[in-house]
Every structure is written in C-alpha cells, then in structure tokens.
C-alpha cells in the first residue's frame, strides 16, 4: 500500500452496530470513497431469535433502529457523500453481513469493535468479527474503538 495514496474501493459495506463506532467508520469510509467515487452501503442487521419467524415485523417498527440508519445517512451527507442504508433481519449478524457483502460484490467490509472486557479481564471480541474475518470474500477492516479512559 502506498503511503501517499489512500486505499480505494468500488463498493464498501459498512456494518452499523448502533454504537458510537458507527459514526467513526461511516465518516472514514465516506471520506475514503470520495476520490474514487466509491459506493457506500451501510447495513444494520437485526438479529431475530428462533422463537420468531425471520419475517416477523420487528425492525421496521422500531424507531431506535430507524435512527441508527438515519444517523449514518447524516454522517455521510456531512461528508458530501451518498450512502445507501440497508436494514436486514437475520438469525446471525456475521452470516448476514458476509452474505450482503457477497451479494453486492463489495470489495470492502468495515466493522467497528467496541473495547470491551469479559468478566475476569480478557478482551472480548465477540463472535461476529471472527466469523466475518473467517468467511468474508472481500477485504475486511475492523476499527477498534479507543480504550475508555481509566482502562488504558
């Protein structure tokens, strides 16, 4: 990778988790997409437990979920970029992100990772990121959020 030229991509899928990391990765990808006119797709996946059918009307009714997508669109607009916001319902977030990136022929998939520790002090990476790292066909970026003050 050249030090003077930022990485380019045609189509990036940005995974929205509904946390403070969303703004950071949407802004990052939007800025990087500008020069090459790359396409940015922000995906928020709502995990549906097996007690409900997959097509249960959950995500569409939730204002909180809509606000996650609206916030991402707002961040992209402030960078003068257009962003396609996608809402999915799935049994597993990691599998849904990989499927979406594959279907869209994305060449980049970006996720944020909050800095969290398990009980006992071990760093917790969750199960979505390992799944995506293992299965996504495209480049994957994981942007870890800063360590909260007092924990560093």
């Amino acid at each position, binding site marked *: 990778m050249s030090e003077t030229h930022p990485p380019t991509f045609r189509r990036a899928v940005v995974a929205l988790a509904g946390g403070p990391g969303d703004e950071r990765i949407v802004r990052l990808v939007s800025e990087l997409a500008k020069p090459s006119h790359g396409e940015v797709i922000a995906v928020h996946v709502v995990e549906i*437990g*097996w*007690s*409900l*059918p*997959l097509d249960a009307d959950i995500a569409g009714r939730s204002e909180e979920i809509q606000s996650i997508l609206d916030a991402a669109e707002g961040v992209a607009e402030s960078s003068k970029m257009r962003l396609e916001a996608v809402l999915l319902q*799935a*049994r597993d977030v*990691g*599998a849904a992100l990989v499927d979406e990136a594959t279907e869209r022929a994305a060449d980049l998939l970006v996720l944020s990772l909050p800095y969290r520790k398990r009980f006992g002090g071990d760093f917790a990476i969750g199960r979505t990121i390992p799944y995506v790292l293992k299965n996504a066909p495209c480049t994957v970026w994981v942007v870890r959020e800063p360590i909260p003050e007092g924990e560093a």
Partner: protein
Amino acid sequence: MFVLVVGGGKVGYYLSKELIENGHEVVLMEKDRARADQIADEIGSIVVAHDGCEGKYLGEAGCARADIVAAVTGDDEDNLVICQMAKHHFDVRRTIARVNNPKNEALFRHLGVDEIISPTRMILGSIEQDIPVHELLHLAALGEGELEIIEAHLQDGSPAVGRAAGDLAMPEGCSLFAVIRDGVATPLRPDMTLRVGDKVIAIGPSECEELLHEQLIGDDPEAVTPRR
C-alpha cells in the same frame, strides 16, 4: 414447515441437511459447542449450541412455533424428555423420537411421543426376516402402538399345522387375517388348513402375544424369547 431437530450427531446432521435442501425451515440444537460450530460451518447458521433438555433453551430455539420436534440424540432419556417438554409444555403438534433401546419403545408411546424410530428394531426386523425363527416377528405397530401386526412362521411342531384357521383359539381382540404360502399372500379363511412353511399374519394388542405364540408356534420354553 418449521422443524426443530435436537441432537447434532450423524442423524441430526443429515436430517437437518436434507430438510433444508427440501425447503424447510430448520433449527438444530447441539449442546457440544465444538460440534455445533462444526455443523454451522458446514450447513450455515441454523445451530443453537445449547442443551435441548432444558426448557429455557428449547423455548429460545423456537419450540413453541415448531411444527415438528425431532429428538435424535444418542440418549433415549434425553429424547424422551425433549419430546415430553415439546408436547406438553410447548404444544408441538408432532414429536418424533429416536429410540436406541427397543425396550424403551412402549414407555415412549405410553408417555405420548407421537412417533418413535428405533434403528435397532429396524435392523433386528430385517435380520429376522432372513433367518428361520421359532418365534413371532413384529412387522409394525399401529395407532398409538397398542396394536401390532405380527408374523408367525409355522414350523414342524407348531400346534397350528394341520388345523383349520377357524379352529384355533385366538386371544380376544386378536385376529389372523392373511397367510403367505409359497410367496403368495392370500386372505386367511376359517376353513383353510395351515401347513408347515406358512407365514400367518395376525393383528392384535401386544398383551396377547404370549397366547398367540402358544397357538401358532408352540409353548417350547426355549423358543419363547421375550420381545420387550
């Protein structure tokens, strides 16, 4: 159709795979995390890595909306518990259990499992069809299992040989309805004289097995083998 499969061994794995290929919605419960991950890697995110014997996890796996629950673990006790919870707590319409020990079949039926599959019984039945046996052969169970179709292969020494079918003292609720002679099946008429080599097909409650045995096979104690 939404099918909840409990047990991620060979049976559960291939059952789930086939069901998915046939367009059904499937969730598979497997308590061993490593095995659950392995299955998920192979057939997708349909695996719940929890013990299906716990009601809480059955609920999380969607038991309450399942059309069918199939308990196919290697433990009869677990399969029974799973089917009972599915049937009586989650009101699942149809429960299917794998029963490894044929001696447990009656208990499963008695406790309300809708359908039981016993690989051991199937193999046993298949073997018995190919060897001459001096006892009754169970061909199928009907209804809730209280009625059975039974075959008796008449040998030398059978008290039924040389007698008319109508002269045999049949236990109450039990009837002889067909005979297979020289490979040809015919309805059994009361005046038909039974011969060595005949295969007589009877239907009746499992309790009358002993009397049926006495009438068709004989009461040689060595020939009487408890079947259940």
